[in-house]
């Protein structure tokens, strides 16, 4: 079994056997390794056991996590490596059975192979990580269409993955007009953000005045025109 040894001024304070899937290090009492020192963040770092390897991840701590003198974001631990957090040192000791992590003996099929983390624990940790990193965490956003012109008023939140705009009854945004397509355009939420596509009908789709025949990415405050209708697109913070 692997072990972690907490040291302060070269004095052993405590030894922790690595019995769980992952262990957290931080100032708060809920941590597996609690270090009551102001230089240490509430949830400072964690170590995950994945297969035969141990991965150290800095949880976006204020003062950083170091292995030796190198600041790390995530790091695969090797036997007898020292983790520096504030003035404390945590020594990592791999067990004999986990020879794969001994220095210089990169075992074949180690991290190259796809593995799954203990997901329940991972969720929890990632959630903590998110709260530990409020400076950089991106707020969840939702796209909104505001009518600028035309017979309708107000705002429409794009709550669906695919929003259809057109004359058809099943359209999320229903517009009238002799030449309006049943589905004239669609807005879809994709991994890279919102994109608008021309779908059909004789009414042209224009974004910021340019005719779009295919699809384009939508940016905040783009103007969308369909016949006599004009909207503005932007994303607002959720909650």
């Amino acid at each position, binding site marked *: 079994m692997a072990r972690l040894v907490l040291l302060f001024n070269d004095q052993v304070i405590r030894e922790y056997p690595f019995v769980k899937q992952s262990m957290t290090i931080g100032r708060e009492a809920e941590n597996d390794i609690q270090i009551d020192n102001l230089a240490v963040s509430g949830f400072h770092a964690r170590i995950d056991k*994945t297969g035969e390897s141990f*991965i150290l*991840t800095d949880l*976006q701590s204020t003062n950083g996590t170091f292995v030796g003198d190198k600041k790390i*974001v*995530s*790091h*695969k631990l090797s036997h007898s490596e020292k983790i520096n957090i504030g003035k404390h040192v945590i020594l990592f000791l791999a067990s004999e059975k986990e020879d794969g992590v001994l220095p210089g003996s990169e075992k074949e099929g180690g*991290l*190259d*192979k*796809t*593995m*799954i*983390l203990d*997901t*329940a624990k*991972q*969720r929890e940790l*990632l959630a903590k*990580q*998110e709260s530990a*990193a409020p400076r*950089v*965490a*991106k707020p969840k956003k939702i796209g909104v269409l505001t009518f600028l*012109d035309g017979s309708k008023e107000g705002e429409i939140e794009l*709550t*669906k*993955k*695919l929003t*259809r705009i057109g004359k058809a009854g099943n359209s999320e945004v229903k517009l009238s007009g*002799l*030449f309006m397509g049943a*589905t004239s355009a*669609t807005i*879809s*939420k*994709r*991994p*890279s953000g919102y*994109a608008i*596509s021309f*779908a*059909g009908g*004789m*009414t*042209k789709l224009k974004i910021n005045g340019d005719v779009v025949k*295919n*699809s384009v990415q939508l940016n905040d405050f783009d103007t969308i025109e369909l*016949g*006599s209708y004009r909207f503005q697109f932007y994303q607002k913070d959720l909650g």
Partner: protein
Amino acid sequence: MQTDRIRASGITDVGLKREENEDSFSLDDDLGLYVVADGMGGHLAGEVASRIAVDLVNKSFRKWKESETSDLDLYGYKDPSLTDPGNHILSSIRLANRVVFEMATENNECHGMGTTIVALAVMPDLIIAANVGDSRIYLVRGGEIERLSKDHTVVAEQVEMGIMTEEEAHHSPLNHILTRNLGANKDVRAEVFEIEPAPNDRYILCTDGVSDLILDEEIKRIVEEGDGPETLCRSFIDEVLKRGGHDNATVVSVYLPDIEQKKQGILRKMGGLVADMLAGIQKARKNIRP
């Protein structure tokens, strides 16, 4: 060559370093469903997991499509942000997860087995792309490449949270550690995206054995230079083997028909002119109003 129907093809290859091929895929042009899965877990478990997942998603989606009821007989809750077919893909993946999970917990020899999955459903007016894990779906449309899947890996989630940059992620030792797969938990949340199809769309589904070695921009180039879907899949696998083939590699390509030409009748053009004129008049009238 252009035709008016969907053309699809798929190849899986064991690669140069592995003994077994744990990837599975399926093509069903009638159903419009294309699935790729990358299994994990020792012995034959990975292969079993990916095969079962692919089969179950096909079966359950087919059952819904052929039942001709408008009832939403879903496994699990309904996601209000998705269409009915989107919800059925989601439900099919949940069901497959449950079966793989039960097998993994009940049989000793299946312990630890799991699989990723990507599914693409093509309907006349809707494309559904769903994934769990790090297998991917790409769309090449109008000279651009775009991912229609989200990697469920530690690094991808850290990039999204802003903790890690893309550059750091690329070199991270955690690249292959999944945060979600089929089989690890009782329930699973799949990523589902819905878009409108466009003529000549080309969709590529692949496992990480391909996307590890070929970057997005290169994938785009290969797709654009590719001929039919069969030759395209072959070019991908050849390229993977040339670059070391460290893992099983599977690629499925789906080409949508070029239906645009049919629409481009003279009537449509005339109609377009009239529509432009009317829109102009409407606008002018609005501007005159006080």
